[in-house]
């Protein structure tokens, strides 16, 4: 059953990826796209498929995997099923900084928006960590409370910025808050890859520890987890993944929160096995979501976060009802 589910998951990701590359729009037919991928075809098709569709696909895979991994790790770290990058204010901090940068920076410097988003996410992370510190180190409850507060502040900042933004800059700033993979480029993917791979490895390394941490600090320490070290590393890694995702794709909800739960329902609770599956499932959901977002109502494009929610929530509801 688990094997079959694994195979299905990989198949869904592969099919969605193939569809994104080959059937991404009228600019190149599937045959032309295939030729371009093989190194031939017209220069126009090559530009569209290799220059646009491929980076967009890779960005979707990276962002989806990053969000789902961060969500799965934070849920266990906090011992709270609601844990995800949004709950802790990390995405909010990144989005607030990115929106501000979009509105304030001169046109020539708009390439710095991802850097601003990363800085904002890092700032929010540091703020939450500092606020949550108690005499015994940061506690999960304090961390969640701090995250909620930082998130509220970030939302307020975003709304303020949007309401006073000059109209030419408004669409770009709005896109950050709604989430989009449209800014994908080869350079963005190359820049983001190491930023996602290293923290992802850290989380996978601590998969088993995270399962133990979900049962409480005392219980985890008794089973050999260096609670302080692991918590610091996991929190920083999850923050880096979320910050990277916000920087290049804006705020995309739902993937980080619900993908891990989908995987828990299908494969059980072992976090060592959950994390890699959540990453693949997050990638698949994101690629599918983006495909629907920019093909369903073409030429109009929906915010990808809306689509991932529309796709994932019904599936989640059915699974939850069937297994309860």
């Amino acid at each position, binding site marked *: 059953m688990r094997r079959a589910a694994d195979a299905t998951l990989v198949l869904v990701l592969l099919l969605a990826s193939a569809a994104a590359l080959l059937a991404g729009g009228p600019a190149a037919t599937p045959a032309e796209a295939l030729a371009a991928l093989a190194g031939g075809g017209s220069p126009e098709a090559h530009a569209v498929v290799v220059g646009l569709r491929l980076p967009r696909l890779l960005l979707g895979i990276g962002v989806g995997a990053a969000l789902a991994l961060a969500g799965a790790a934070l849920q266990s770290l906090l011992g709270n099923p609601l844990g995800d990058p949004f709950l802790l204010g990390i995405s909010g901090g990144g989005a607030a900084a990115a929106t501000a940068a979009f509105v304030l920076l001169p046109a020539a410097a708009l390439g710095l928006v991802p850097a601003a988003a990363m800085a904002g996410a890092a700032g929010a992370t540091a703020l939450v960590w500092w606020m949550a510190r108690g005499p*015994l180190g940061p506690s999960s409850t304090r961390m969640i409370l701090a995250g909620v507060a930082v998130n509220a502040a970030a939302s307020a900042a975003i709304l303020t910025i949007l309401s006073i933004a000059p109209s030419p800059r408004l669409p770009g700033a709005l896109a950050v808050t709604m989430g989009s993979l449209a800014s994908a480029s080869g350079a963005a993917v190359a820049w983001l890859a190491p930023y996602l791979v290293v923290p992802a490895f850290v989380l996978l390394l601590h998969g088993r520890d995270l399962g133990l941490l979900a049962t409480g600090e005392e219980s985890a320490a008794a089973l050999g987890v260096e609670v302080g070290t692991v918590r610091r590393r996991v929190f920083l890694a999850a923050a880096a993944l979320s910050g990277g995702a916000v920087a290049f794709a804006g705020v995309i909800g739902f993937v980080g929160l619900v993908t891990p739960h989908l995987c828990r329902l299908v494969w059980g609770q072992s976090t060592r096995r959950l994390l890699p599956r959540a990453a693949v499932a997050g990638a698949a959901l994101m690629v599918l979501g983006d495909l629907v977002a920019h093909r369903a109502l073409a030429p109009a494009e929906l915010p990808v976060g809306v689509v991932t929610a529309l796709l994932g929530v019904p599936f989640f509801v059915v699974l939850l009802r069937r297994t309860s």
Partner: protein
Amino acid sequence: MMLLAARALAGGYGGAEVVRMVDLDVAEGDCVAVLGPNGAGKSTLLRLLAGILPATSGTVELRGRPLASWRRREVAQTMGFVPQSVSFAFPLTVAEVVQQGRAPHLGPWRPPSPRDHAAVAAAIERVGLVGREHAAVQRLSGGERQLVLLARALASEPRVLLLDEPATALDVGHQLELVAILRELTGEGVGTIVVVHDWNFALRVANRVAVLHHGWLHAAGSAAQVLRPDLFREVFGVEVELIERPDGVPVLVPHG
């Protein structure tokens, strides 16, 4: 060599000292019952001994080596710890929880081997939860959950076992089962320290008793030496009567 030895051990939370200057030794096959009123520092002492809470002064040695020089995973391979309760944020099954006890032997990547599965099955059988492996632990009664936590600690095959009030939620039948399990373990040479509120439970399982009062070790020694009526007057403020059953087992009965 002592399995576990504490010297002038002190510690607490945020500058407030809860345990003060405690000396305690556990040899192979020892079962030490830690007694004392609420807030006397019993659970804190257990956390200090397990190294979960760092000591502010004094030392703990595990198998002759300072606990501070052990890595947490090494400690967990040797010492089992049964907390009073555990939070289950996700719907784990009994088998999944007991499986966690093997984590110290597995490290980050290695999947469980047949040897690990055997240890888990043996632990589940020992606490009498065979047939309940796939039950959701959140749906178990409080007593059954305590047994699951005991099984989790047993699955790590510890040489030293620390138990924090393992009997509080157990009905009398399960309490007697726990007594039998603890006796079996001491018979196998496992050193155990068990925090209990029930004096008679302590009398049944422990060959030594340590009484904490305001964080100090008020008295320590064999149960017969320590559990005298004057101790209960001083520490708990109650009058008790020590009755000997026909089979020689002493029973403590409080007055009033």
